[in-house]
């Protein structure tokens, strides 16, 4: 206590007053054991927080976060206000990265598993673990495969790529369910075809005034959710009291559908048809500028308009109205959502939607569509997401016995691949499987060794952001905000250590540790918004500001010279798997806005937070239209068996009024067999219904064109619904009238009609 100076003491009491006031007057309520500090570490004063900028790794979007650190413990994450992606905001998943850090089931050191799948882990010293890995890699030569996730830090991808290159193995596969469902590779290859560069398209939503979203749940789970939600906020309050108009096409109402001014429940798989019909109608009509009509005429392929209403569920009047709205709007924008990318004709379907952007001249314009900004010379490139073809190739190598050592980081293929992939069986052909995941996930269960990486908040790294926003290229920096909780080694350091002993790799990976590598990368960056002349200052500012970006758009994205597209684009409705007679319902799968692809399921905050639309937490549910439920005699909590041509799952029914009667919807996220106490044995993984079929370009597997049947199992399992479970009946009332919104649609229609007259 002697070390407490008066001043220090005053500070402590000042800081503590907030607590004291809340804790009230009862002395016995709160007492603390004071810990005297003779020499407090710099930046650590009791009661005063330190703030560290880093980047979020809960999804690949690369938002900037600021961690509030108290006495060396991270206690709160907030958005980085300077960061061009999330601009100070942070989604639920990002917030809960804290619980990843403090997860009670983390692997606290290197472990070996004598018998795969036994879940009996033997702690080993790191030296031994690294030595074993070294020996295995040394023996394997080029018979090595690396599997990374989309959220794996880009620097790790770079290091692994250098490593595989050096030893002559194929480049790492970077593939997980999140990137698969969001269609990263499909969208990237569409960009490559259309605009010449393989990267994610970027949409300037905030400045668009008429947005047609073809299943893009951009406020729920699409690409860069927080970034697009910020954009959505701007979209709703544009300068001069302008307010954008959003039309959402999706068989099941997602949060974006709920936010939309108009939600159109189209037949699953018919997004491309709708897009094409709109293009055709623009071409045939007389609304919009002459250029638009001209471009539409050039691009819109032949389509039998008569058949469209039947195939899509959108009436001809509605289609005509939509075409008018889109053609007439000043800055219209069309978004190709994730369901398009899970269809066999993904490339066509995406092209059909992007065609609308080309027609209205939105490419490269404010409020339009462009490519993610490329980084200038000298900067690292965004790590590419593998296509499903790459995955299949890797599976082929594994099954062919061509892989002796498999390294898995940030991905969970045992959970995230359709069962048809037979991943766990295939592992029998691999001599040595290493998982670097901090939690024991399904893949780690089948690993020989777990060399846990640090959790994101303890780690170094960077992330080249895609998609970008407003044309600003961004590299998010990642730095530890706390000292590691356990004796866990950064995978980058492990790799560098191992590589030092492997002759082929030693020269390719000369850095002493990953920080040295990162510093070198940062030193090579051109001047950004953060300034700083010498390397050390620039490095410091890179960390301090949360990354590197430019002040203004670089113009590196696809410019105004939009392709005067050559051939007309035609697309048809998606072919569905499963016979309509045997499997009467369409299956609509979607990423849970909270749990994502399942990587968020380990965390109680996300498990316990209600889903926005259903308010269900903690379990998987099956959304069924009330009419369908009535026909099938189903009600809330009835457990049903969903069977597709590829498999079956069981889950409880949620009677969901905003879904097509011929469609049922299931969220991804649950159904883990491992992954910590909060995720394990909870709900079902709808991936079991999905097969290994892939479309023409095999960018992703086909998950959005399934038919299923529903059977009642007879049992009941109540869902944890936060909403009232009481049927509101005829006396339901809204506590607040949303009058103004009611009038919106009519008003828009009136405006359009007036113009026509």
């Amino acid at each position, binding site marked *: 206590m002697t070390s407490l100076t008066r001043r220090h003491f005053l500070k402590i009491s000042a800081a503590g007053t907030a607590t004291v006031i809340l804790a009230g007057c009862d002395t016995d309520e709160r007492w603390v054991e004071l810990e005297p500090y003779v020499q407090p570490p710099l930046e650590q004063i009791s009661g005063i927080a330190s703030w560290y900028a880093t980047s979020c790794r809960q999804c690949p979007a690369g938002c900037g976060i600021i961690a509030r650190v108290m006495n060396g413990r991270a206690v*709160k994450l907030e958005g980085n206000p300077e960061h061009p992606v999330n601009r100070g*905001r942070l989604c639920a998943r990002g917030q809960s990265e804290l619980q990843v850090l403090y997860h009670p089931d983390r692997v606290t050191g290197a472990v070996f598993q004598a018998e795969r799948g036994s879940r009996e882990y033997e702690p080993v010293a790191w030296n031994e673990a690294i030595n074993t890995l070294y020996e295995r890699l040394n023996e394997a030569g080029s018979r090595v495969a690396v599997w990374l996730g989309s959220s794996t830090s880009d620097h790790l991808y770079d290091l692994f790529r250098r490593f595989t290159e050096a030893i002559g193995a194929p480049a790492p596969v970077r593939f997980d369910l999140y990137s698969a469902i969001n269609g990263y590779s499909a969208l990237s290859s569409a960009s490559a075809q259309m605009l010449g560069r393989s990267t994610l398209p970027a949409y300037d939503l905030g400045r668009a005034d008429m947005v047609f979203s073809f299943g893009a749940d951009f406020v729920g789970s699409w690409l860069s959710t927080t970034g697009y*939600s910020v954009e959505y906020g*701007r979209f709703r309050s544009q300068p001069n009291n302008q307010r954008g108009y959003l039309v959402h096409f999706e068989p099941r109402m997602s949060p974006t559908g709920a936010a939309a001014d108009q939600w159109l429940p189209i037949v699953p798989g018919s997004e491309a048809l709708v897009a094409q019909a709109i293009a055709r109608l623009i071409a045939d009509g007389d609304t919009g500028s002459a250029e638009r009509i001209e471009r539409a005429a050039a691009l819109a392929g032949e389509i039998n308009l008569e058949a469209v209403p039947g195939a899509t569920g959108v009436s001809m009047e509605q289609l005509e109205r939509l075409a008018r709205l889109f053609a*007439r709007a000043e800055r219209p924008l069309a978004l190709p959502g994730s369901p398009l990318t899970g269809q066999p004709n993904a490339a066509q379907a995406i092209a059909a939607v992007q065609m609308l952007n080309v027609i209205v001249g939105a490419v490269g314009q404010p409020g339009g569509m462009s490519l993610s900004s490329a980084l200038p010379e000298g900067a690292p490139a965004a790590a590419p997401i593998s296509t499903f073809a790459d995955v299949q190739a890797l599976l082929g190598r594994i099954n062919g016995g061509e892989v002796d050592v498999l390294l898995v980081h940030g991905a969970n293929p045992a959970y995230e691949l359709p069962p048809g992939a037979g991943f766990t069986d295939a592992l029998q052909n691999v001599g040595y499987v290493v998982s670097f995941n901090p939690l024991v996930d399904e893949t780690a269960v089948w690993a020989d060794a777990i060399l846990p990486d640090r959790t994101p908040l303890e780690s170094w790294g960077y992330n080249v952001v895609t998609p970008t926003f407003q044309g600003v290229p961004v590299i998010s920096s990642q730095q530890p905000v706390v000292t590691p909780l356990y004796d866990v080694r950064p995978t980058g350091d492990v790799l560098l250590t191992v590589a030092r002993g492997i002759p082929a790799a030693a020269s390719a990976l000369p850095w002493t540790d990953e920080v040295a590598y990162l510093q070198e990368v940062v030193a090579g960056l051109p001047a950004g918004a953060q300034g700083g002349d010498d390397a050390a200052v620039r490095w410091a500012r890179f960390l301090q500001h949360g990354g590197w970006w430019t002040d203004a758009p670089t113009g590196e994205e696809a410019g105004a010279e939009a392709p005067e597209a050559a051939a007309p684009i035609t697309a048809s409705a998606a072919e569905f798997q499963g016979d309509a007679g045997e499997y009467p319902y369409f299956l609509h799968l979607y990423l849970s806005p909270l749990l994502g692809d399942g990587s968020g399921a380990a965390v109680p905050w996300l498990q316990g937070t209600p889903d*926005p639309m259903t308010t269900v937490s903690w379990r998987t549910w099956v959304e069924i239209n009330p009419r369908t439920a009535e026909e099938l005699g189903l009600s809330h909590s009835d457990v049903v068996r969903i069977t597709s041509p590829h498999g079956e799952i069981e889950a409880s029914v949620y009677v969901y009024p905003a879904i097509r009667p011929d469609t049922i919807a299931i969220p991804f996220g649950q159904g883990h067999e491992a992954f910590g106490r909060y995720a394990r044995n909870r709900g079902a993984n709808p991936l079991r219904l999905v097969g290994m079929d892939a479309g023409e370009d095999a960018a992703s597997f086909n998950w959005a064109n399934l038919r299923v049947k529903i059977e009642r199992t007879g049992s009941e399992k*109540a869902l944890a619904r936060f*909403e009232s479970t009481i049927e509101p009946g005829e006396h339901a009332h*809204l506590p607040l009238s949303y009058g103004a919104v009611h009038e919106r649609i009519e008003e828009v229609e009136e405006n359009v009609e007036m113009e026509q007259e």
Partner: protein
Amino acid sequence: MAENNKWTMIVDLDKCTGCNACVVACHAENNVPIANEEEVIKGRGLHWIRIERYWEGEYPDIKARFLPVFCQQCGNAPCEPVCPTYASYHSDEEGLNGQIYARCVGTRYCGNNCPYKVRFFNWRAPEFDEPLNQQLNPDVPVRGAGVMEKCTFCIQRIQRVRQTPEGDYGPMTRDGDLQTACTQACPSDALIFGNLNDPESRVSRMLPNDRQARLLEHLGTEPAVYYLKGGTTNVGE
């Protein structure tokens, strides 16, 4: 900072996407425990801020309405006078409904009397599996079993700013410097927080607003939370 603040929240329903970022931010900031599945099924879900989802209309002309509800910090709070131990009281200085956990004996009268149902009772002692407890915000006490709790407009942040000597951080009293956890997180900027007594603040500039409404205004509770109903689109003009 002026005496007698009037902290106010504006919820722009036109922008709310129901994403729940505010909910998790609040859990993190205020040490709100997570109710497990059984508890939620029993109707004991616990979130200081919750997104109520209402359906309007029928398929296919159906609308989902999101309504973020949290303590409305009533000017005439029904919860206050019914508390026998002054655990819920009114702070004139900040214009807030205070809840002093240590005074609470758990009569739950305030919870009954709250028309917004934003008061939550700790049915059990909260559990944080170690080391999840290391995340807990030391500025906020963890409520024990038998105690009522509710949204405080992040009073700890207000207190911290008020009690920070100017020399340390500089006077952080400009509008926007002080944010509740939920407003800070809200990606679509649907939540706006500020001092209505500060004419320069964003909330003052946004109010009055022709879209404004207050929840259950007919009860005369004088809430400090203003909801902005949906806007109108003038595209195509």
